[in-house]
């Protein structure tokens, strides 16, 4: 009889456990994603963020929030509606206030939208846009955000890199408010989409949207590089030069090699500091994180901070005069030699891209 009682207890306990997990599942996951758009189309980082949102759980609805002004916004909205089958709705905020991605009005907008519909998760990519705006959103909502997520283990458990990627921290969000995340997009690649589904597009009523009239920030200007080369963050091949290149002229060799291989150009912090290349080419812990198929580093010593940005590359090739350079410890193929001889030889011997 004791056995019967014990088994009965076990049954009750296991049933209770099942009951709890069922109630967890029934908590619906609805995600709001801060979308980035440029010249009438959604940026690939936003699509990666949608892919990440799918990892949050089974029943998830994904809404994209687009803000801006004018026809390019509406074009981007219509493109966003079919950018990924998981997108259920596109919210459009059309106003001059959002012409430039300033953190103050945008954060207020997210709060405004959230007040009208309850979201369990608010996401953005870990780009300079997302990193600038989302922590501000989190503070307005009085929640702790989780930034630079590389892996999603559940609706509230994530992995993010710390110490320049030399350690991975698994965290659990235990708060009551929405879970605010920025996603490292190189960890969530976009697979080609087979089904096409068009989401609904709704214009947000901004009549009740109030903004701070007192202390503001204003957009003055920008200087961006306009190249035909692939974007550094999403290129399949990245060729990087370090300080050993010694001049802006010499960096043209790197550019030629990148062009030959159809890749993007990257640089180390030292090269950017020395003025050989503009800052948006910097790869590393505080620059861009890249994860290409092929990463070639010329004259790069391999400082911890630089390696943080390239660890997820499939194949790393390093060329350096110094056989003891730390880069050789992470490189799959290393060549100890003078890059001023190796690069011209490579340019000569590499077959043409068909």
């Amino acid at each position, binding site marked *: 009889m004791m056995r019967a009682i014990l088994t009965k207890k076990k049954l009750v306990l296991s049933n209770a456990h099942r009951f709890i997990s069922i109630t967890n599942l029934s908590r619906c996951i609805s995600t709001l994603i801060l979308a980035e758009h440029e010249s009438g189309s959604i940026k690939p980082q936003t699509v990666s963020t949608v892919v990440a949102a799918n990892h949050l759980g089974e029943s998830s609805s994904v809404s994209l929030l687009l803000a801006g002004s004018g026809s390019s916004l509406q074009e981007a909205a219509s493109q966003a509606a079919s950018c990924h089958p998981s997108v259920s709705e596109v919210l459009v905020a059309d106003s001059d206030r959002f012409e430039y991605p300033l953190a*103050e009005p945008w*954060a207020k907008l997210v709060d405004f939208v959230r007040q009208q519909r309850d979201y369990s998760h608010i996401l953005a990519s870990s780009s*300079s846009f997302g*990193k*600038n705006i*989302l*922590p*501000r959103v989190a*503070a307005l909502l*009085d929640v*702790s955000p*989780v*930034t630079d997520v590389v892996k999603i283990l559940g609706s509230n458990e994530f992995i993010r*890199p*710390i*110490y320049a*990627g*030399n*350690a*991975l*921290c*698994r965290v*659990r969000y*235990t708060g009551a408010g929405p879970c605010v995340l920025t996603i490292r997009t190189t960890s969530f690649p976009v697979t080609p989409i087979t089904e096409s589904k068009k989401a609904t597009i709704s214009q947000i009523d901004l009549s009740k949207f109030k903004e701070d009239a007192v*202390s*503001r*920030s*204003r*957009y*003055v*200007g*920008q*200087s*961006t590089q306009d190249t035909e080369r692939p974007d550094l963050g999403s290129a*399949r*091949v990245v060729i990087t030069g370090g300080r050993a290149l010694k001049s802006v002229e010499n960096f043209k060799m790197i550019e030629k090699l990148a062009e030959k*291989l159809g890749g993007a150009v990257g640089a180390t*912090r030292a090269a950017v*500091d020395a003025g050989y290349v503009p*800052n*948006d080419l910097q790869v590393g*812990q*505080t620059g*861009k994180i890249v994860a290409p*198929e*092929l990463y070639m580093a010329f004259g790069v010593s391999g400082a911890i901070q630089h390696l943080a940005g390239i660890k997820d590359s499939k*194949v790393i*090739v390093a060329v350096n005069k110094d*056989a003891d350079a730390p880069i*050789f*410890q*992470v*490189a*799959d*193929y*290393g*060549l100890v030699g003078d890059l001023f001889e190796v690069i011209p*030889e490579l340019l000569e*011997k590499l*077959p043409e891209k068909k």
Partner: protein
Amino acid sequence: HQTHKSAPLTNLRTMKILVAVKRVVDYAVKIRVKPDKTGVDTQNVKMSMNPFCEIALEEALRIKEAGFAKEVVAVSIGPPQCVDTLRTGLAMGADRGIHVEANSSFLPLTIAKILKSLADVENPGLIFLGKQAIDDDCNQTGQMVAALLGWPQATFASKVVVLDKDKQFATVDREVDGGLETLSVDLPAVITTDLRLNQPRYATLPNIMKAKSKPIKKMTLEDLKVDIKSDIEIVEVTEPKKRKSGVIVSSVDELIDKLKNEAHASLWNYYRFSGFGVDGGPAAKKLALKLNLANANLSSRLWVTLSNIEVRQASVTIVSLIAIGGVIFVIRKIFGAYLAVYFTIVSPILYDIYNNGPEDRYFSPFWIELFKISLQLQIFRSYKAKIMQSMRMDE
């Protein structure tokens, strides 16, 4: 919730700048994850001021030295050792320090709330922070302080920040993904600093001595009426997967070879010699050319139209003929004759005999090849004969 409206600044010369500095593991240290996975080992490890915080403090000092501010106050939140970090800041030139006692490591949101409370007390015109701490790499605190205060923010500042004395705003260049963006922010504002903003100064010995007498005020969370927010718990800290160790190659040729054959980098899909592919590959293409030419030539000479031979079938046939012919030649004398026939017809096509005259460079290699093969086969035959002989002798 209420937005913070600070007292209007009548004169920038009385402006205070608050700089938050964090004590972190030194950037050059190679960190180790604790075996129990609770965190990173920070015992007996060199600690310093976060490099971005140094840059933030340096910028604040430069603004004060340019006459746009009166006082630079350094703040650090953490265990008693933070006082060392504050002393470094004072040695660099900060006027006074504030140490907020906290033993556990707080989440950025709590730090932001502490800084907000301090700002309510101190009323600074600018708050400078480093864009991120190199230990947790969060990049959140500055933005959150700005939100809690309702102040504008200029994050990832590079290039010198210029203050306008009359109009009370700052012009900031920011490093963004596409390049540089310039914003102008009304004061009071929060600015987080990026790498290229400045080169922090070293603390000189006289300044280090002076720093010993500068005041450091101690405060607690109760003083500031801040509740600790702990809505994120650390489950575990692990090491990332190590990359397989690589190889050192000795030449560019070897590198290209390895990339082609070993790396399987999809890059090389562009160049790969697809063995046969759909149409037989490059080797077959050449064969097709030769076949067609030979066909044409033969038909014209023999007044017979030879049917079109499909290249793929031809290549397969040729390969198998070589194999079979060789084997049979060794075993049976008669088939050697067949092989000779094969050699006279097929190989010439391969070696372009019909299309080239004796002066062409393809001509002689054919005969050399033919000679080589027949020689090898003769040797095989003699070996076979010897074996047969020895077997007969054994019987």
